[in-house]
């Protein structure tokens, strides 16, 4: 995945390119002018710039300097090929509009490690937003532990941003390496060994070829084991062996393969209590606890709400063209709430609020359900004790879809799921004769 800054004043082109690159796993930020691009470059780190030659405030060539990421020139004029090729500076390639998706990916894939923007230790924590004492302390700890090869355990309530911390630890040690994340609670118990450790062909029914597990795949990078508390007991033993011996054995193989990846684990559960109850191995617990970080809940860092709000609204604005600021009244109301769902709840609240305030100059009111995240209707008839999770999910999707007037992209974003997941659910309901009609 490359972090791409796209500089072009053609909105249609930017939108199409963002969609195409996003589908291939790249992270794209766009800027419509040289001034905007310079401001964006100061605020964020990029691996490559895609620059249109003619911009409203000058030539895109002005952005190319040795201290900036390598550039790919985009032009609608094939005749400038020779001129572009003669340029000095870190120009990787040039592309002619209309840009072919395969060609675009070839260019990004061809960026060698040397081409990629070196990430400084301090820039690894850039994505962790906030100025509160709790967050400053967390950033310092990340910078201390990040470059080490040791295992780190991240604890914190759901929605606090544990994965973001894992990414920062990864970037601080080996940003060019792979970060392979696996959610231990989301994989069927019978498959988890194969996912973690890999398997040999014929090791079990369905193992039609050899497959590397996450430890081998990560290489010299990082393995992020999310929801480590959900790891089945038998896999806990195997994981302990890997951490102790730094070797992995694929399922169905007796060959020990050395691993160099660093392990970062996260959980929102009290592992010490799980150890006391016999639900988690004590030896693994202490092996994971070499270094540990606690991500503070949002209620303990309310001072960060204005900064987080601004950051989140900016990213929402980029996608939905909604207001990019919140009024002081809205900020005050958010500051008086205890945010049980943490930053994830804040993000979804702002998304709903921004969509509802579309067309206005600022987010000036919060959604009607603000402060009652589990209640969907004011008459509280939505969630009942004992209700099946599937029924609740269907109800949530139906209400959110109606709220967004049937717009599926916005609905998926509000629910925090991919568009494909939303379509899959709708199809399931349809096939079960329970189609949602909006």
């Amino acid at each position: 995945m490359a972090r791409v800054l796209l500089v072009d004043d053609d909105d249609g082109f930017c939108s199409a390119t963002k969609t195409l690159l996003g589908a291939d796993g790249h992270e794209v930020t766009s800027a419509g002018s040289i001034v905007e691009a310079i401001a964006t470059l100061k605020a964020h780190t990029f691996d490559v710039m895609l620059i249109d030659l003619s911009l409203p405030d000058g030539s895109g060539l002005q952005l190319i300097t040795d201290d900036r990421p390598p550039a790919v020139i985009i032009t609608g004029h094939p005749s400038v090929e020779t001129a572009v090729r003669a340029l000095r500076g870190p120009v990787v390639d040039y592309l002619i509009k209309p840009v072919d998706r395969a060609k675009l990916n070839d260019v990004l894939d061809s960026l060698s490690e040397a081409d990629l923007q070196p990430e400084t230790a301090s820039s690894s924590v850039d994505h962790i937003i906030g100025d509160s004492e709790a967050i400053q302390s967390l950033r310092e700890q990340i910078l201390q532990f990040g470059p080490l090869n040791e295992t780190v355990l991240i604890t914190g309530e759901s929605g606090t941003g544990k994965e973001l911390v894992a990414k920062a630890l990864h970037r601080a040690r080996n940003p060019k390496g792979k970060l392979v994340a696996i959610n231990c609670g989301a994989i069927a118990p019978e498959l988890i060994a194969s996912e973690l450790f890999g398997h040999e062909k014929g090791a079990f029914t369905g193992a039609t070829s050899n497959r590397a597990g996450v430890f081998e795949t990560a290489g010299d990078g990082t393995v992020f084991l999310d929801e480590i508390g959900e790891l089945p007991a038998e896999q806990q033993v195997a994981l302990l062996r890997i951490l102790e011996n730094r070797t992995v054995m694929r399922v169905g193989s007796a060959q020990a393969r050395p691993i160099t990846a660093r392990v970062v684990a996260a959980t929102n559960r009290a592992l010490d209590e799980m150890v006391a109850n016999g639900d988690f191995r004590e030896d693994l617990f202490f092996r994971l606890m070499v270094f540990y970080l606690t991500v503070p809940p949002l209620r303990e860092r309310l001072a960060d709400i204005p900064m987080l709000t601004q950051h989140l609204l900016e990213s929402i604005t980029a996608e939905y063209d909604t207001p990019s600021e919140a009024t002081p009244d809205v900020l005050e109301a958010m500051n008086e709430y205890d945010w049980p769902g943490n930053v994830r709840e804040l993000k979804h609240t702002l998304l709903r609020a921004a969509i509802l305030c579309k067309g206005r100059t600022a987010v000036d009111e919060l959604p009607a359900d603000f402060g009652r995240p589990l209640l969907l209707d004011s008459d509280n008839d939505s969630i009942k004790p004992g209700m099946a999770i599937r029924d609740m999910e269907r109800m949530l999707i139906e209400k959110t879809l109606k709220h967004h007037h049937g717009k599926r992209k916005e609905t998926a974003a509000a629910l925090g799921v991919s568009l494909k997941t939303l379509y899959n659910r709708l199809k399931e309901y349809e096939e079960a004769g329970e189609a949602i009609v909006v």
Partner: protein
Amino acid sequence: MMATLDELGIETVRDAIHKLNNCLNTISMQSEVAKVFVDQGAVDEAQDALDVVRRECQIATLLSRFLSEHTVAR
């Protein structure tokens, strides 16, 4: 409703060629976008992309007619 040449700000052959070039770029890239959405099963979004393609095709037809007429006139 299809845009007119005036609404598109087309006054000269040069304007028309520039706009036609942009149209063709948009048609090509939005077709790719539609393909991506179809692969993802996102029917509505694919339809939106195809609507853009259709609109740009209409504009391209209008522009090519304008260009033919000017070429003949010369």
